[in-house]
C-alpha cells in the first residue's frame, strides 16, 4: 500500500459539510461521513482503478473489503483498516506517511465508529433513483408558498434560523425580470407591478415573463455555455463557422417549452429520428460545437479524437453530472467508471459524419430563383447583343445587282449563326468519344468509396493528409485500344461547399489536391505522355496546377481546381502507348498535402480516340452528343448555343451584367450537423492507453458504465443513448437539470458542483428537495417553464437578500437559504441591462451573429489580426446573446465579466469582481455610447433641466430607476445632484468640454458645446452604470 506521487492529490479538497452533523445510535452515515474519507484518502490506491491498485486490496466494494479482512463488522480492533490507520509504525500506517492526504483524528474516529456499527456500505446517493418524499412540516409552514419552501424552512428550523421577510416589490420585480428574461424592467413596468393590488399580481407577472420571447433568449445563453457555442472554429486560425441556426433552434425550443427529454434527444440524435425534420437535424449542432483545428500540418484525425473526448466529457457533465472525463486516461479514481467504459460511451457517440447542412431558407431560395430567372432571360437575350456583320451597303455600292441591304438584325443573326457554326464545328472536331468505366473494385486507406448510378465514385467517412484510392476496372476486348484516360472531378451537394473535394479545414472547403495518378494493366505500369485540363489552380502556396504534376513522381505537386468549388472539371491523361490487351486496369490516386484533401466525387472514363484527346470545358453530355452520328436534337443544340453564348469573346461586355447577377447570388445559410454513418461503415472505437491518441488498444463496443446497469436493455447507438439519458434508467439527468436551474436562480446549486455529482462532490445541501424537484420535473412532463415557475413563485426565492453580520458568519454562501439570492449578473446581462436602460436595445431576434463596438486591438491581437467591423444600425444594439463569439479573441467586455470562450462545456461560471471590470464599465466607449443615449432620453422625458429645480431631481430619478429599478433614497439623490452641479460648473467654466463628452471624441461641433447640462447628465449616467447594484440581481 503506497501512494504514488503522480496521483493527483486533492490538496485543496474539502469534504467538510456546512455544519458538523451529529449522529445517533446508528453511527456515522456512510454516504455523508465515510465515503468522502474513503474516496479521497483510500480509493486512489484501493479503489476501482486496477492499474493503480496497491496490495490487491479494494475498499470501494464491501465484499472485497470484508474478504480481505480490512473490515470486520463490529470489531474495529480486529479490522486491518482500523489497525493500520491508527498504527504508529511508519511501515504499516495508512495512508503512508509520505502521502499528501493524511487522516485527521476526527476522521479516524469516524471510521472506527463506522466499523463498530457494522461497516455498512450504501451506494452513492446520486446512483440511486430519486425518491419523492412528502415535504416536511415546520413552524414556518404558514410562510410557505409551495413544496420548495417546506423543505427549505424545515432545514432552517432545524438549524435554528428563520427565513427572511419577502423582498420589497421593486427588488422582486427586478429580480424576476432579470432571472426570467435577462432584462431589467423599465420604471413603468416596475411601477405597474408595484401598483398592482391583485393578490396574484406576482404570479401573473411571472406568467407574462415566461411567455415573453425574451425568455428563450435569456435561457438559451445558459444552455449555450453547456453547448460551448461559438461562431469560430478555435485553435490557431480560429476562422468563422456558421452554426447560428443551432443557437436559434435553442431559443425557439425554450420559448415553446419543448420538454427537456425531447430537447435532449433532438440535440444528441435528431438526425437518427424517423423522418428527421430539418429542425431536428439542426438540433444536432449541439455536439458540432467542438473546436476544429485548421492549422496547416496537423493530423486531422487526432483533433477529431480530441473533439470526441470533448463530446464525452460534455455529455457526462450535462446529463450525468459526472466527471466522465476523468476516465479518459485511466479508470476513474473515485467514481465507478472504468477506463474501457469511458470508451464505451465514446463509441455510442462516435459513429457520425459531420457535414454542413444547407438550410432552404425561403427568402434566400426565392432570391436565388429570381436571380436565376433574370440570368436566364439575359442569357437568352445575348444573341441580340452579338455584333452584326459589317453592313453590306459598303459592298452594295460596288455592284448595282446586289440584293437590298440586310437589316442590322439580319446581319446580327447572320454573324451569330456563322460564328456559332464555326465554334460548333471546332467542338465537333475536338469532341472525344469517352466511355465511362465502372469500377469492379474500390479500395482506400480509410475513406469509404461507393459507385453511384452514373458510374462516379463517391467518398465518405474519414480522410487523412495522405489518402490513396485504388480503383480496379475490367478492360474488355471491345474497348481496345485505349489511348487516354479522363478523370472528372464532380460536384455534389453532400460535399463541403458542394465539392468536388472533401477539404474541410485549412484549405478552401470543397478543395482537393490530386498529387499523383498511377495506372497499370495487370502488373505492367502504364506511362502517361501528356495531359490536359479544363481548369487548374491551387490554393495556399505559389505552386502551379499543371496536369503533368500528377505523373511527375513528386507528391508535393498536383492538380486542383481551387476557386471553382461546386463545379465539374476534368483532366485527360494521354497514354504513351495505348492499352491493346484486355485485362485488369488499376488506377491509384494519391492525395498528399499538409491538409486532408482527397476527392469526394469523381469519375474515370477511357477512349480509343487516336488523335490527341484533350480535356474540354464543355459539359460532358454535350461533348458526348457531339460525338454521335447524325443531327443534333433541338434541345441539345439549344444547350450548345447557350454554352456558346456563355463563352463567345464577342459577348464579353454584354455578359457583364449577367456576371454581376451571378456574384449577387446569395448562398443558402448553412449549419453544422451530425449525420449517422451507414451500418456498413461503422467507425470503430478503441481504448486509448493513457488517453493518448496514438496509443489505441483493443476495440471497444458501445455501452454505458456497469453502474447504470439495471437489467434493462442497454443503449447501443447514439439515439438509444440519448433516449436512455432521459429515461427512468438514468438516475441523474433530472437531478442535474433541476440543480442547474436552481443555480441560475440562487447563484449556487443545491449541489454546489453542478458539474460533479460523483462521490467526491459535497452532498446536496437539501437532498430531499433535490429529489422532490427532480421527480416533479419528470412528472410535470419535463417542462422547464413550469420548473422555473415553481422556483420563482416560492417564498424561498422571494425573500429579501439583505445580509446580517450573524448570517454572514453562519452561512456566508447562503447554502441554507435564510435569505434571498444576491449575485452579480452574467456578462451578457450586464450589457443587456445597460442596453435596455438606455432605450437602445433592439428587439430583433435570430440570424447571424452581430458585432457591437469594441476596440480594434481586441481582435487585432488574434491570429491574422482579424478585423472587427462594428455593426451599424440596430445590429449594434442587439441582445448580447447575438454577439459574434470568437474563441481566440472573445468580446472583451464579456470575457472580463467571466463569460466563457466556448472552448469547453461550462456548467457554472466564475463570478469575479475585478479592477478590469471597473475599467470596462467606466471607460469602454460602448458603454459611454449607451450612457449618452440614456441621458438624452431621460432629459427629454423629464423636461428642460434647471439646476437645483425639481427637474434635476426628476432627471436623476429617471436615470437611476432605468438602471436600478427602485427609486433613489433622499441621500442618494442629494449626492447625485451635488455631483451633477459640480460637474456642470466645471463644464460651464470650460474645464470640461461638453462637446467631447457628448461626441465621444474631440470635435468642433459648437452646438454640442452649448449642451453642458446634457453632458453633466451623461456623467451622472456613467456613474450610475458603475454601481454594484446596477449589475447585480437584487
Amino acid at each position, binding site marked *: 500500500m503506497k501512494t504514488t506521487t503522480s496521483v493527483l492529490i486533492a*490538496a485543496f479538497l474539502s469534504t467538510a459539510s456546512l455544519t458538523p452533523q451529529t449522529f445517533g445510535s446508528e453511527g456515522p452515515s456512510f454516504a455523508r461521513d465515510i465515503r468522502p474519507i474513503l474516496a479521497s484518502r483510500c480509493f486512489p490506491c484501493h479503489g476501482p482503478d486496477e492499474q493503480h491498485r496497491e496490495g490487491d486490496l479494494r475498499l470501494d466494494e464491501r465484499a472485497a473489503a470484508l474478504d480481505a479482512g480490512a473490515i470486520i463488522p463490529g470489531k474495529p480492533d480486529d479490522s486491518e483498516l482500523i489497525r493500520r490507520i491508527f498504527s504508529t509504525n511508519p511501515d504499516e500506517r495508512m495512508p503512508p506517511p509520505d502521502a*499528501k492526504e493524511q487522516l485527521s483524528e476526527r476522521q479516524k474516529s469516524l471510521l472506527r465508529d463506522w466499523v463498530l456499527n457494522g461497516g455498512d456500505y450504501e451506494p452513492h446517493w446520486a446512483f440511486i433513483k430519486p425518491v419523492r418524499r412528502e415535504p416536511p412540516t415546520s413552524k414556518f409552514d404558514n410562510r410557505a408558498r409551495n413544496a420548495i419552501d417546506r423543505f427549505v424552512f424545515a432545514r432552517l428550523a432545524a438549524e435554528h434560523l428563520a427565513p427572511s421577510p419577502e423582498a420589497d416589490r421593486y427588488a422582486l420585480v427586478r429580480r424576476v425580470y432579470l432571472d426570467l428574461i435577462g432584462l431589467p424592467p423599465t420604471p413603468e413596468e416596475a411601477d405597474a407591478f408595484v401598483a398592482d393590488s391583485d393578490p396574484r399580481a406576482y404570479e401573473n407577472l411571472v406568467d407574462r415573463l415566461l411567455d415573453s420571447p425574451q425568455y428563450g433568449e435569456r435561457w438559451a445563453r445558459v444552455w449555450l455555455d453547456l453547448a460551448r457555442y461559438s461562431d469560430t472554429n478555435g485553435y490557431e486560425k480560429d476562422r468563422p463557422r456558421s452554426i447560428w441556426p443551432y443557437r436559434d433552434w435553442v431559443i425557439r425550443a425554450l420559448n415553446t417549452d419543448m420538454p427537456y427529454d425531447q430537447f435532449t434527444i433532438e440535440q444528441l440524435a435528431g438526425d437518427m429520428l424517423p423522418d428527421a425534420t430539418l429542425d431536428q437535424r439542426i438540433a444536432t449542432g449541439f455536439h458540432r460545437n467542438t473546436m476544429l483545428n485548421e492549422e496547416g500540418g496537423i493530423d486531422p484525425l487526432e483533433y477529431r479524437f480530441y473533439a470526441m473526448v470533448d463530446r464525452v466529457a460534455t455529455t457526462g457533465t450535462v446529463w450525468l453530472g459526472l466527471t466522465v472525463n476523468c476516465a479518459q486516461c485511466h479508470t476513474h479514481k473515485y467514481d465507478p467508471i472504468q477506463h474501457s467504459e469511458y470508451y464505451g460511451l465514446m463509441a455510442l457517440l462516435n459513429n457520425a459524419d459531420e457535414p454542413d447542412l444547407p438550410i432552404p431558407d425561403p427568402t434566400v431560395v426565392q432570391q436565388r430563383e429570381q436571380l436565376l430567372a433574370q440570368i436566364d432571360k439575359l442569357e437568352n437575350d445575348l444573341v441580340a447583343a452579338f455584333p452584326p456583320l459589317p453592313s453590306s451597303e459598303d459592298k452594295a455600292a460596288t455592284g448595282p445587282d446586289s440584293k437590298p441591304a440586310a437589316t442590322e438584325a439580319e446581319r446580327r443573326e447572320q454573324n451569330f449563326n456563322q460564328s456559332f457554326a464555326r465554334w460548333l464545328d471546332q467542338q465537333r472536331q475536338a469532341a472525344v468519344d469517352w466511355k465511362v468505366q465502372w469500377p469492379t473494385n474500390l479500395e482506400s486507406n480509410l475513406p469509404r468509396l461507393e459507385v453511384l448510378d452514373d458510374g462516379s465514385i463517391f467518398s465518405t467517412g474519414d480522410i487523412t493528409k495522405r489518402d490513396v484510392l485504388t480503383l480496379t476496372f475490367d478492360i474488355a476486348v471491345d474497348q481496345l485500344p485505349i489511348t487516354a484516360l479522363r478523370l472528372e472531378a464532380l460536384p455534389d451537394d453532400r460535399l463541403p461547399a458542394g465539392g468536388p473535394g472533401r477539404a474541410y479545414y485549412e484549405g478552401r472547403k470543397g478543395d482537393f489536391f490530386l498529387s499523383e495518378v498511377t495506372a497499370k494493366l495487370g502488373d505492367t505500369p502504364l506511362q502517361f505522355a501528356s495531359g490536359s485540363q479544363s481548369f487548374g489552380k491551387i490554393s495556399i502556396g505559389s*505552386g502551379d496546377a499543371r496536369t503533368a504534376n500528377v505523373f511527375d513522381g513528386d507528391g508535393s505537386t498536383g492538380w486542383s481546381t481551387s476557386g471553382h468549388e461546386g463545379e465539374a472539371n476534368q483532366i485527360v491523361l494521354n497514354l504513351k502507348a495505348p492499352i491493346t490487351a484486355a485485362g485488369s486496369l488499376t488506377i491509384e490516386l494519391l492525395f498528399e498535402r499538409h491538409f486532408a484533401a482527397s476527392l469526394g466525387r469523381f469519375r474515370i472514363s477511357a477512349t480509343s480516340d487516336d488523335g490527341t484527346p484533350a480535356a474540354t470545358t464543355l459539359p460532358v453530355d454535350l461533348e458526348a452528343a457531339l460525338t454521335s452520328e447524325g443531327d443534333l436534337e433541338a434541345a441539345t443544340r439549344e444547350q450548345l448555343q447557350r454554352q456558346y453564348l456563355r463563352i463567345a469573346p464577342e459577348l464579353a461586355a454584354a455578359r457583364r451584367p449577367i456576371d454581376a447577377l451571378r456574384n449577387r447570388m446569395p448562398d443558402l445559410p448553412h449549419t453544422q450537423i451530425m449525420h449517422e454513418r451507414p451500418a456498413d461503415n461503422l467507425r470503430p472505437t478503441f481504448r486509448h492507453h493513457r488517453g493518448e491518441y496514438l496509443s489505441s488498444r483493443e476495440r471497444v463496443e458501445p455501452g454505458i458504465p456497469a453502474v447504470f446497469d439495471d437489467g434493462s436493455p442497454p443503449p447501443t447507438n447514439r439515439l438509444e443513448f440519448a433516449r436512455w439519458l432521459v429515461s427512468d434508467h438514468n438516475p441523474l439527468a433530472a437531478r442535474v437539470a433541476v440543480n442547474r436551474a436552481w443555480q441560475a436562480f440562487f447563484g449556487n446549486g443545491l449541489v454546489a458542483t453542478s458539474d460533479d455529482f460523483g462521490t467526491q462532490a459535497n452532498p446536496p445541501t437539501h437532498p430531499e428537495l433535490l429529489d422532490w424537484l427532480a421527480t416533479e420535473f419528470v412528472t410535470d412532463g419535463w417542462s422547464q417553464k413550469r420548473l422555473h415557475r415553481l422556483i420563482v413563485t416560492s417564498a424561498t426565492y422571494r425573500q429579501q437578500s439583505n445580509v446580517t453580520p450573524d448570517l454572514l458568519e453562519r452561512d456566508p454562501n447562503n447554502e441554507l437559504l435564510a435569505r434571498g439570492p444576491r449575485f452579480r449578473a452574467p456578462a451578457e446581462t450586464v450589457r443587456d441591462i445597460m442596453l435596455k436602460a438606455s432605450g437602445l436595445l433592439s428587439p430583433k431576434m435570430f440570424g447571424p451573429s452581430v458585432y457591437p463596438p469594441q476596440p480594434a486591438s481586441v481582435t487585432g491581437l*488574434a491570429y491574422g489580426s482579424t478585423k472587427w467591423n462594428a455593426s451599424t444600425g440596430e445590429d449594434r444594439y442587439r441582445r448580447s446573446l447575438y454577439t459574434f463569439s470568437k474563441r481566440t479573441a472573445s468580446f472583451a467586455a464579456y470575457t472580463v465579466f467571466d463569460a466563457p*470562450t466556448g472552448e469547453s462545456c461550462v456548467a457554472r461560471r466564475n463570478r469575479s*469582481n475585478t479592477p478590469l471590470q471597473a475599467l470596462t464599465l467606466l471607460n469602454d466607449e460602448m458603454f459611454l455610447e449607451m450612457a449618452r443615449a440614456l441621458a438624452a432620453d431621460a432629459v427629454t422625458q423629464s423636461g428642460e433641466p434647471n439646476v437645483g429645480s425639481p427637474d434635476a431631481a426628476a432627471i436623476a430619478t429617471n436615470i437611476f430607476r432605468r438602471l436600478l429599478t427602485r427609486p433613489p433614497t433622499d441621500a442618494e439623490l442629494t449626492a447625485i445632484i451635488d455631483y451633477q452641479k459640480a460637474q456642470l460648473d466645471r463644464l460651464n467654466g470650460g474645464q470640461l468640454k461638453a462637446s467631447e463628452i457628448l461626441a465621444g471624441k474631440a470635435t468642433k461641433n459648437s452646438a454640442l458645446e452649448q449642451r453642458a447640462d446634457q453632458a453633466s447628465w451623461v456623467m451622472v449616467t456613467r456613474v450610475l452604470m458603475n454601481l454594484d447594484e446596477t449589475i447585480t440581481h437584487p
Partner: protein
Amino acid sequence: MTDDSTLRDQTRRHFFQNCGVGIGRIALASLLAQQFGTARRASADDAASPIAPKPTHFPATAKRVIYLFMAGAPSQLDLFDNKPMLTKLEGKPLPPSVIKGQRYAFIQPDAAVLGPRFKFAKHGESGAEMSEPLKQLATVADEIAIARSVHTDLFNHSPAQLFFNTGSGIPGRPSMGSWLSYGIGSEADDLPSFVVLKSGGSLSGGASMWSSGFLPSTHQGVPFRSEGDPILHVSNPAGFDSQAQRDSLDLIRSLNEQRLDVIGDPEITTRINAYEMAYRMQTRAPELMDFSQETQATLNIYGAKPGDGKAAFANNCLLARRLAERGVRFIQVYHAGWDHHSNVEGGIRGQCAQTDRPCAALIKDLKQRGLLKDTLIVWGGEFGRTPMVESSAALGRSMGRDHHPQAFTMWFAGGGIKPGVTVGATDDLGFHVAERPIHVHDVQATILHCLGIDHEQLTFRTSGLDFRLTGVEEHAPVQEILA
C-alpha cells in the same frame, strides 16, 4: 459570493494543512486573516485583493519571471546545437530506424538531411557553443544556462504553444502566469499580476495562452496592446479629465457604501476596492509606458526605439524590465516569426537581427540594476526544427526545416539559475535526446520551483480533478541548471 471567496477558503485551508512548518501556526493564521479578511462584515478597507502576495511553499530564488517566448520555433540546429554530422550526410535521407514513425506537419519522413547553416564557436569561460548570428548573446554566455535536450509532445504550433503555457495542448486550461498569480499573488497593487507583450507575426496559440482557464478570471493575463490603450480601457473616455474621473469614482464609492450599509453584502466591499485599484492602474499606466525616463544609453543597449514597430521586440524587452521593477509577477514577451519552413538561413538571420541584442541587453540591464538575481529569464520556442530539409513545390518552399518535437534548445538566466552551464545533449543527428531529457512539464516545474512553488502542490479542483500545470505524470525541476 464570488468564487474568489471559495478560493480564499480553500487556500487558507491549504496553507494551514501544508505550510505549517517553520512558521508558528497562530502567526500564520493571523497573517492569512489579514490577507484574506476574516471579518465577514468587512469594511471597505480590509477586503484583500485576490492577487495580494501569498506565502510560497519554500523560499523562492526568483520573485518574477520574464519569459521570452520565441513563437514559431527557432531552429536549434542553426543556433545552439552544432551537428557537423548533418553536413556530412547532407542530401541523404535519415534511416527509418531514427524517425520511428514520427508524424510530420509538412515533410515526408524520407526528406533529405540539411546541414547547419552557420558557423559555431565557443564563448565565454563556460565555452557555451552558439552560432554566428548570436553575437550579442555570446557576450553574456557565462550568465546563462543552456538546455539542449528539451522535448515536447506536440508537433503543431497552436497546441505546442498552449502546451508550454498551460500544460495542455487543448485550449481552456489556466496559463503559467495565471497559476503563479493564483498561487503566490503579485507584488504590484497598481498593475496586473500577469502581463503579456507581443511582437512579430501572429501567435498560433492565441488568447488561450494567457487565459485563466478554470481559475478565477482575476488571474487572467493582461495583454498590452500596441494600438490604443496599452491596457484595455485604462484611459478615461474623451472629455473626462482626471478630476472628473476622481469625482465620479468618489460618487460611485459613496453610493456603493450607502448600499453596503443597507444590504451588508461584502461583495460590495470587494467592488469598492476593485474601483480603487482600477484608479491606481489608470494613474500608473502612463508613467509605466513613458520611456522618456530612460537614458539614451539604456535605449541603445536594447536597440529600443519608442514608437518604432521595427524595434517592437527591443521596446518590449525594455518594457519588461520596467514591469519587473514595478512588481509584476509574470511578464510574457512573445515574439512570433521563427517558423522557417523555407530559407531557414535567411529567416534566422532576420530574427536574430531583431532579437539577439535585446535579449542580451535585458540580462545586462537587469544585472546592472541588481534585478537579475531575483528575476528569472526564460528563452525558447514551442518545439525544435528537423534535421531534414523542407521543400515543397506546391507551397513554394525550399531549404527550410519542419517542426521537430523530439529535441530542442532553451536557455535560462537570473534568479535561481546556475550561470554558465550547458545541460543535456542530442544524438549526432540532432534528432533524439541522447542525454538528460527535459520535458516541457520539467521546464514548468523548474520555473515554479524558482518562485518557491512545489509544482505538485499547486493544484485547483474542477470537473472532479485536482488539476495542476504539470499534468499527472512524474516531473521534476531540472536540478542541473539550478544554482
